[in-house]
């Protein structure tokens, strides 16, 4: 009886052992085939079981590990060890995610308490970590970019928006993500559909220059580069757009063009001036050359009596040439800031009388009657010869453009200012020319008709400004011009120079 029972017992035991072995074998196959590294540790932290993937991740064979402590000389990281200790001591499930310096890999580890220790499941997440890092790095680049970087789907709905885009267009990401890209489109532009068409065909659009609309309604010139975004299967799902504000570039280009035009204009004016200057110098040279010829002939033929008068006239032409040369030198002095004043007590009335006296002949020949109202005693601290030059310039202009009509010079005193007006009744100056006549090389009257370097009024203004004075003109074409000078009696601050 008991033999049969025993035999059954043995049979059952054998069966259950076989079943248990089958289960153990099944478990081992499972552990060997799972996609995580797996090991179990006993209460003394000794490796009991290490699966194939764990061998691979840890870079050790299971024979090297089983029976040895995981705490010493183990490939486990500090963070891993801490988590294992915690799970073991507190009987809690623990998780760790850490870089293992020995393995140079990122591991994610889950530790579960078991009746006789812990089991550890871990996997290599290095690739995922690196991808995340890369993504963060790219996001940081996008975020810190000066350019606007925007993505949109193929329907033109905005899907991302960086800080550069906010700076450029004024919208925050919250305001505009999910909104149509047409929000950035000026009403009269229709280049968006063309760009989207090219994107749908998989083409890139580079350095496309256009205009976009800001949140505040203003327009901004931009350069666009747009590239298609593809999903993992290679399908085009959207577009990445980089927009750069080219306002400054545009301004610089415009500025460059303006400078170029100005330089060209300056060169043209200079050229014209040189031609005028050449013309002006040739006139007194002509007189001088002919006078010297006559002089020589008369001396040769013994007509010395007529020579003296000729010499006087020749020396006047020399003075004229000297004045022209001085004017030319004045231009250089003024433009290089070397116009120096020799300030001294000067009587404006005396200066005016002197100039009028010197111009008696030329005014008479021009048929202009000259009226001078210039009382003596209008004294100030001025450069006498420069003041003489100012009055001379104004008077010779009045004679030149005075059409043979009367000219009036009037000097007066107004508390701390001296006033001088020179009035003619000649051809006058049109309003648009009145603005130009004090510029360099400008002469309102046709150069075909009137001589002169076109420098007189410019020099006059510079001299007066050096004295802290000013000059202005009122004029009506055909009715004459009045030039008015306001000159402080002494330089501001009381300094003499």
């Amino acid at each position, binding site marked *: 009886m008991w033999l049969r029972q025993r035999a059954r017992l043995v049979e059952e035991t054998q069966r259950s052992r076989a079943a248990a072995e089958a289960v153990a074998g099944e478990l081992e196959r499972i552990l060997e085939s799972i996609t995580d590294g797996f090991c179990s540790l006993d209460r003394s932290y000794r490796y009991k079981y290490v699966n194939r993937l764990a061998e691979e991740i840890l870079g050790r064979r299971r024979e090297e590990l089983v029976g040895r402590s995981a705490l010493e000389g183990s490939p486990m990281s500090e963070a891993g060890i801490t988590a294992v200790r915690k799970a073991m001591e507190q009987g809690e499930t623990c998780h760790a995610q850490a870089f293992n310096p020995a393995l140079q890999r990122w591991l994610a580890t889950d530790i579960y308490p078991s009746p006789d220790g812990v089991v550890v499941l871990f996997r290599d997440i290095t690739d995922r970590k690196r991808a995340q890092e890369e993504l963060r790095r790219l996001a940081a680049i996008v975020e810190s970019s000066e350019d606007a970087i925007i993505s949109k789907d193929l329907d033109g709905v905005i899907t991302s928006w960086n800080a550069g885009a906010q700076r450029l267009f004024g919208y925050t990401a919250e305001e505009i993500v999910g909104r149509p890209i047409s929000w950035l489109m000026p009403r009269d532009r229709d280049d968006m559909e063309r760009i989207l068409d090219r994107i749908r065909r998989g083409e890139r659009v580079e350095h496309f220059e256009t205009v976009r609309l800001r949140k505040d309604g203003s327009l901004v010139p931009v350069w666009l580069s747009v590239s298609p975004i593809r999903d993992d299967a290679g399908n085009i799902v959207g577009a990445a757009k980089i927009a750069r504000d080219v306002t400054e570039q545009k301004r610089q280009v415009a500025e460059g063009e303006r400078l170029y035009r100005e330089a060209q204009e300056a060169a043209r004016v200079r050229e014209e001036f040189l*031609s005028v200057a*050449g*013309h*002006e110098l*040739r*006139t*007194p*040279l*002509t*007189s*001088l*050359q*002919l*006078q010297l*010829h*006559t002089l020589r*002939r*008369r001396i040769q033929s013994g007509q010395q009596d007529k020579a003296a008068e*000729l010499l006087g*006239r020749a020396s*006047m*032409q020399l003075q*004229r040439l000297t004045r022209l040369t001085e004017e030319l030198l004045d231009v250089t002095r003024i433009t290089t800031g070397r116009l120096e004043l020799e300030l001294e007590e000067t009587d404006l009335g005396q200066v005016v009388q002197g100039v009028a006296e010197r111009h008696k002949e*030329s005014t008479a*020949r021009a048929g202009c009657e000259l009226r001078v109202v210039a009382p003596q005693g209008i004294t100030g601290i001025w450069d006498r010869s420069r003041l003489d030059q100012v009055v001379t310039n104004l008077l010779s202009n009045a004679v*030149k*453009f005075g059409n043979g009509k009367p000219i009036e010079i009037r000097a007066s005193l107004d508390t701390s200012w001296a006033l001088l007006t020179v009035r003619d009744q000649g051809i006058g100056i049109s309003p648009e020319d009145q603005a130009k006549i004090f510029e360099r090389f400008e002469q309102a*009257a046709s*150069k*075909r*008709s*009137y*001589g002169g370097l076109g420098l007189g009024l410019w020099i006059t203004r510079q001299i007066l400004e050096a004295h802290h004075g000013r000059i202005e003109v009122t004029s009506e074409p055909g009715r004459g011009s009045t030039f008015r000078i306001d000159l402080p009696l002494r330089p501001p601050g009381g300094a003499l120079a």
Partner: protein
Amino acid sequence: MKVLVVDDDYAVLDAFKDVLEDEGYEVSVAANGLEALKELRQGARPDVILLDLMMPVMNGWEFRQEQLRDQALSAIPTVIVTAHNRPEESAKELGVVSCIRKPVKPELLLSTVGKFRG
């Protein structure tokens, strides 16, 4: 032989006058085109006109137009005297017989005027 000199610069007029008169020419002067035209219309008939171009009131170009329009005056030989860089161009444009460039060489002035003698 008579010469009419038209120039707005009195010193130039005087200098021309001296040189030409010393050579026996009879010289009259005018300060601009209008004065010259007035003189001619009052009957003056010079053998040659020396004409400056840049003058106020009536310049040399305008004078020349008036002269050519007037049959009594159009045949008077006219020489332009100018400080222009390319006087030949102006001469062609104005249909004048000759041109002299300022500054004027006395010898050239005398030889040019001499061509119209008698």
